[in-house]
């Protein structure tokens, strides 16, 4: 199928853990560049906040290609949700010049699960 794809074996991670995703794309022509970005963003009632933590350029991308992409997650901030704001971690694949993007959302927390504000904490992962 035409387009971009980002897949990973798991979506829940501990602080400092390595994330490996597989980036693949199927295009008519070779993109000028492809970048993978590790970032977090907020979603909710107010203005959105975005912070790109690391960018990896995938060299010499072909029209049809598959690449592994690895990031080491930082210690914080944790993935969380309240009623007013959620903080969401993601890896995004962005191609130039088309600007097409594909997103893989993940969870970063000491429990491996999103922290839901106002609920009792879940026991930390072993």
């Amino acid at each position, binding site marked *: 199928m035409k387009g971009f794809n980002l897949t990973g074996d798991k979506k829940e991670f501990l602080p400092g853990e390595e994330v490996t995703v597989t980036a693949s794309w199927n295009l008519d022509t070779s993109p000028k560049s492809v970048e993978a970005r590790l970032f977090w963003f907020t*979603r*909710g*009632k*107010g203005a*959105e906040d975005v912070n790109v933590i690391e960018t990896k350029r995938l060299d010499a991308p072909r029209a049809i290609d598959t690449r592994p992409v690895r990031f080491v997650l930082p210690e914080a901030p944790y993935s969380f949700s*309240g*009623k*007013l*704001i959620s903080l969401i971690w993601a890896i995004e694949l962005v191609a130039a010049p088309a600007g097409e993007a594909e997103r893989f959302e993940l969870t970063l927390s000491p429990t491996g699960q999103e922290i839901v504000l106002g609920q009792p904490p879940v026991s930390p992962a072993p």
Partner: protein
Amino acid sequence: MRARDNPFSTDRVLRVRYRLDGTTWPELMSRLAALDYRAAIVGPHGSGKTTLLEDVAPRIAALGYRVKMLLLNENHPSFERDLLTRFYAELHPRDIILFDGAEQLGTLAWQLFRFKTRRAVGLIITTHSPGRLATLIQCRTSPELLGRIACEILGSETTAPEIESLFTRNRGNLREALRELYDVYAAQ
């Protein structure tokens, strides 16, 4: 409901684009050209002026003009002096300035701004009241429009509750009405 799941989160609301009523994009762009690209989008708070200005921008760019954006609002009611000095110095005869929140400038500041930006080929502003430039379009809201937007966000099969009272309570300000709907869903 978690913020990330709220159908009225900011990112979802911002995906709703301006709905022209009684005109079409070709007609609006023709009128803009007839006004020499010096015109005002007029309307009260929360009536879609900013959204419409954002939707005009790519159509201006497609005509080969350079789009220069400026924004003032109640939280940032004036420009930094250096910013405007640089802005004036960099103006090009192919530039069309899109100025959101022109009502924030006082009368003298507005006159000075018009003089300093005369080199630009166009100036399109949003403002709450007519009079600063010829009116391109008057943005209006209605309970029906609010209902259609809420349905678009929620899905075509769903109707948000109490649209009439929501509209009245927020004095026709659709942005505030949609924020109130966020709170309704957040409480679920």
